[in-house]
């Protein structure tokens, strides 16, 4: 018994999730033959303190934390099996139907086991962005992966458009300030707003925008360059940004015009939405663009 405990402690001293081969274990336990080692390992296996795995066709051993083992020893055989599948799925989580297919258990049993595991706070349900209708389980203490949560733009599996919009506005203002001189000064009219000389090159890069966002602490979310890049792409789709070079953006004049809602021409201009005639709903002469189609 003591030998088994010693071996287990020695295994736990190694970094977490280390796989041991049979010769390594024999060395740690200080036994010569495989048969002697197996007796010791069997004791640990009975107490669920060791897990078996196969790596490259060879048998490997992995130590299990005593608390974890205690957890498992309280579970029924079905629950343990389901638990091990959920554990194996890691941060991606596993769908109930997949559990059923893999364990070959009856649905009632699967549901009962899942309910019991959930009530003991061993596992939890997460909402997947990719498959909003599926019930996906993962270990209670794990944080779902980006694929499951959808990244920083999703809150509870729903796209947080308010958050996205506010970030878009902040980024746009930052970049616009660097694209056009004195653009946010109230007395500046668009009709005589100066421009930077063509040799001006100080447009914003993704790194600078990220730095600005992190410094201004507008969000507690941990953002990375890729997130900023995708926001900049959205701004390009909104015709608010244009790409100068790789990862370098500047604002479009149109976006400033839209913000200021100022008429650029004295005459009617097809691009000046501010000069469009306001349609009176009650008037009979309203022109509908799609009248022909309807």
């Amino acid at each position, binding site marked *: 018994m003591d030998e088994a405990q010693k071996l287990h402690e020695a295994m736990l001293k190694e970094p977490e999730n280390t796989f041991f081969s049979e010769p390594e274990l024999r060395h740690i336990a200080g036994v010569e033959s495989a048969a002697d080692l197996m007796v010791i390992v069997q004791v640990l296996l009975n107490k669920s303190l060791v897990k078996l795995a196969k790596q490259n066709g060879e048998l490997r051993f992995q130590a299990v934390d005593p608390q974890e083992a205690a957890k498992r020893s309280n579970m029924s055989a079905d629950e343990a099996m389901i638990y091990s599948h959920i554990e194996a799925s890691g941060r991606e989580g596993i769908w109930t139907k997949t559990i059923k297919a893999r364990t070959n258990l009856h649905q009632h049993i699967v549901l009962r086991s899942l309910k019991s595991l959930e009530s003991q706070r061993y596992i939890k349900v997460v909402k997947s962005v990719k498959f909003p209708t599926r019930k996906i389980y993962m270990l209670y203490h794990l944080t779902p992966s980006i694929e499951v949560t959808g990244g920083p733009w999703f809150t509870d599996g729903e796209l947080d458009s308010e958050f996205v919009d506010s970030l878009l506005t902040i980024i746009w203002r930052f970049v616009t300030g660097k694209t056009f001189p004195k653009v946010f000064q109230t007395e500046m009219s668009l009709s005589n707003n100066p421009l930077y000389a063509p040799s*001006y090159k100080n447009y914003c890069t993704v790194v600078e925008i990220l730095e600005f966002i992190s410094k201004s602490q507008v969000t507690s979310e941990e953002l990375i360059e890729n997130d900023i890049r995708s926001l900049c792409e959205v701004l390009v789709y909104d015709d608010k940004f244009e790409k100068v070079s790789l990862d370098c953006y500047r604002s479009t004049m149109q976006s400033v015009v839209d913000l200021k809602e100022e008429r650029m021409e004295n005459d009617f201009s*097809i691009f000046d939405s501010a000069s469009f005639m306001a349609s009176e709903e009650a008037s009979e002469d309203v022109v509908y663009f799609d*009248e*022909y189609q309807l």
Partner: protein
Amino acid sequence: MSFSKTQNTELYVYSGIVESYLGKRASTVVSCLIDYGRLSLKDLVKRTKMQGVLVKKTLVSLIQLNCISVWEETNFRSTTTFYSFREDGALLMLYSGEIISHIEEIYNNDPSTTQIVQNFLSLGNLTISDYIASLGALDAETIDKLERCFMQLVRDKFLVPVQKSHFYPVKDLWMKTMKAAYLQVPNGAALSELKRTAEAKEKAKLQFFNILNAEPEALYLKDKATSILKINSNISLTFNLKRYMKSRRSIQLAQLCSHRVGKVTSKVFYKALLHDEKNSPDVVNLLHQIGLTNEEIVLGSHYEPLQNNLFAAKDIVKNIDFSLDNSIVTGVTKRTQPTAKLNNTKRIKLENGDYGTVTGNGDMDGDDDSDDEDDFDDMGEGFVQNGAPLATVDQHLRILTNSSIPFLKKENSSYYIPYPELMIHLKRSLSDSIISSTLGSPCARIMRCVRGNRLVSEKFISSTALLREKDARSLTSTLVKYNMLQIQEVPKTADRAASKSVFLFRVNEKHGNNTLKTNICWNMGKILEKIALLKAENAQLISKINRDDVKGKELEYLLPSELTQLKKMNDTELMLTTKLHRLISLWEVFKFY
């Protein structure tokens, strides 16, 4: 006879405008010709169910006003004259108001010039002697002034001499030229049929342009006494719609520029557009009209400007009549990289054999491009070059070349306007702005997302455009409804079952623009109909105010109720006409450019 207005939206507009200017008979003839295509007089009489004499009378005025073209075809027995609809005349009617105000603007409200143009618009083709004779006895000074006006208009190409080819339908003229050219190419065994056609086409293209652009002999005459050039007063002239369309294009491009680059730069750009505007390429490529395929027409990216379309900053600066002070600000011109050492330079060999240096930030000094000459390596901001218009204009021109939409391109040290490429951007910007102002900006976001990524799935749209899936779905279906997006089905299984297929989206600009064009055209027709209806409703009042005794004394002769009615009618007409012209300015982008 009547035509269904839904079958052809252009028929709806053209018959409406012709009816309002020339009456019901002319409109019937025009509708018939648009609907059936080329018709002989006999067929025309049969189809319009009008008397032959009336049809002939109508045809005369329609031909005079450039609404109909004539073509004679001879077969072995007899010669038949065919009539077909010509857009130019109807378009001149549509644009007449705008043409007059544009002429007033560019000739500084000169009443004689405006009056000349007005007369040419309402009468079609005229000679100068006829025009002067119609004004009655005039003193020599007035005649001289009028002749100078004519000279100016002909030089600016607003008036062009009428040629026989003006009355021919372009397609028929092309076919005839092509046929003749084909027969000229010898038919030998060494030449394949394909090569023979291609060779004939090349020859025919040249001949075709020569016929259309030929100038009559003795158009300009030298006054023996004063040795001043003047226009031959016996040659018939007509208003040149193509020239006016160039002006329209310039205005629209300048407006686009003010929204994409900036107001002051757009003013400079407008001056660049006006520089040699008369010699700029036509708005409508004739080769498109005669049905040549794309390979036979120079594509936008291969556009090469003519020598006189090139200009430099000094050509523009003389026309600048507004202040450019404080319009350019120097900022940080060189990106500072903390990691790059200042002396991190290396010599590299340039294409021309010279040596240049590359600094840590990749900027190359010593190249033959003048870009770096004006680099200001200060870190502060300040206005530059006050009182140095040439340099400032050049800076503006360079901003235009650097813009994401290529407003200008540089060739050696000169600039030119890449019209074919610009027109694509103009159309795209307009359809995007229509989408965002009618369907909302998320729709425009989806459009640009799909356009940027070519063929995408719904999931891709929602993840890259950061839209909720249900929003993305409803918005894409709206865009599909208006032909802005197309669906492509990608089968997943061998049996191509629709239930297993994936549906992807892509943009087909041609289809989208066509939808917009037809819809706008329909609205124009509708407005013309409303104006006609308004006039019919108030026919009694209109006939009363047109009476000689009432004219100018409306307040005395009209009842208070009639005055209110008149005011209301005028207001409604004004509003409808404004709407019509706004729609025309949208329509022309999709129709001609």
